[in-house]
């Protein structure tokens, strides 16, 4: 079960993308996502897709890893694709009772599928190439202005670090408890949905209890290492922008401008 989760999975490497500052990766990722949704025709969609594939290629991480990140949401992609087939206007290609597939619907479906796929893969670039600490560190720095509104930025970042660290630990634990309960004769696989949800209770309660114990231990371990809520804290890896970041920003800006140009030049088809 733990093997299927790709969230927050960092794959160390030495590519240009790995060398980028985590802050610029986050900002450019958000910008890219916005532009993926701004595409109004196939030319601009193709442009942003090629750009995304180029970035993915540049990470030097096997393409299979990215396809795996898609596997988790495959069902959603197919479902939204199918639904979109029936929404749309234009020439009717196929009709049965009230359901009709139109040319507009097909275009919509293709757009939605490509968008979600690219979105997932380009987001995976961030988590694959950035260590969890860099990531939370960057978020902490980016959210710094929120301190003005009394948002506890450091605490949020620390919570995220710990959450990312303990996801695999808790997944392992869930597996162990499930097996322990099965060994005691618990039935998790049969019955209707309500019965199966109820069958999860004997797994969730021990999981909660042990999580509190872990939290207690962790708090103690952090205290032992002089943690005092982020006051006067330094970092081993100081984030700083380099030439790589400037180059990435320039290339991305050109692509984004290209998307806007294509949108205007070739008109909107959705």
């Amino acid at each position, binding site marked *: 079960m733990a093997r299927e989760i790709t969230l927050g999975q960092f794959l160390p490497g030495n590519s240009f993308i790995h060398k980028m500052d985590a802050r610029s990766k986050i900002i450019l990722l958000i910008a890219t996502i916005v532009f993926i949704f701004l595409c109004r025709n196939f030319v601009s969609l193709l442009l942003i897709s090629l750009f995304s594939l180029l970035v993915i290629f540049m990470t030097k991480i096997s393409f299979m890893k990215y396809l795996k990140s898609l596997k988790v949401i495959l069902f959603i992609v197919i479902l939204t694709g199918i639904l979109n087939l029936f929404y749309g206007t234009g020439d009717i290609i196929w009709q049965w009772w009230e359901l009709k597939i139109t040319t507009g619907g097909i275009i919509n479906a293709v757009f939605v599928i490509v968008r979600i796929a690219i979105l997932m893969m380009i987001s995976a670039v961030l988590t694959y190439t950035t260590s969890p*600490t860099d990531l939370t560190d960057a978020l902490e720095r980016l959210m710094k202005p929120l301190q003005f509104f009394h948002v506890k930025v450091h605490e949020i970042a620390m919570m995220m670090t710990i959450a990312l660290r303990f996801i695999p630990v808790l997944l392992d634990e869930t597996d162990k408890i499930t097996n322990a309960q099965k060994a005691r004769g618990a039935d998790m696989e049969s019955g209707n949905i309500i019965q199966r949800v109820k069958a999860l209770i004997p797994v969730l309660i021990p999981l909660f209890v042990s999580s509190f114990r872990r939290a207690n231990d962790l708090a103690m371990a952090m205290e032992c290492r002089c943690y005092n809520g982020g006051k006067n804290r330094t970092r081993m890896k100081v984030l700083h922008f380099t030439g790589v970041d400037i180059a990435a920003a320039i290339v991305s800006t050109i692509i984004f401008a290209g998307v806007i140009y294509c949108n205007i030049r070739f008109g909107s088809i959705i």
Partner: protein
Amino acid sequence: MEDYIKVSHVYFQYESSEEKKPDDFALNDVNMMIGKGEFVAIVGHNGSGKSTLAKHFNSLYIPTTGDVFVDDINTKDDEKLFDIRKKVGLVLQNPDNQIVAGIVEEDVAFGCENLGVPPEEIRKRVDQALKAVDMYEYRLHSPDKLSGGQKQRVAIAGIIAMEPECIVLDEPTAMLDPQGRDEVIKTITELNHSMGITIILITHYMEEAVLADRVIVMDTGKVLTEGTPREVFSKVELLRKHRLNVPQAAELVYKLRGCGYELPECVLNEKECVEVLAALMKKHSKVG
């Protein structure tokens, strides 16, 4: 030997104990001295108060009455709290629960970052600490891909990077397999010998206690007996009475002595055991 930690007349009661009966104390008049650079093992069975005592050494717990001094600083002194924690590091039992970051080297850096050490200095210390526990090649790994012994060594590295004078280990091997246990114990003895760090090892494995300079036996919140491993493990009857084991080699020799064989009083490890048995057999074959 210069005294480093001084525990004097310490009583400790958990806040949750409802009635203040005298036998509710988790620690009951504990006195001990730990010298600078010494390797001390504290043994005792469950509920003997050894883990409670461990948490007194770096002021996680404050004695209900009595005092604990670390390098002449009273652990009650709130202003010196971080000084004490910098001097005395604590490694806990479960390696999973004390690793904070998702990457080995970043976790090792955590303590130094809290202390406000400059970045280049942290880098240097982290590399040294990881080399000291022989985990340098795993520095970019995620902790959940490591074995228990490796994780525990990362936890130890996290403490070493803070450059402590003393490390307290609260049953660091209890959740490990035999191989992981060997790795951790080897690391600890190495730190004591080559870096001169004072080590307080809390354990219930007598085979580990044998490696220490001095063994302190605890029972029901009191110090039962203390001395060199040889002195302590020769008191087989006393230890037995308090439901404590002795190392297997010591037990075998003790039983043979009980059967009337002439053997030396205390044998600590397998090697010594083989030697004395071989000597005995030679003697017997000559007689026969």
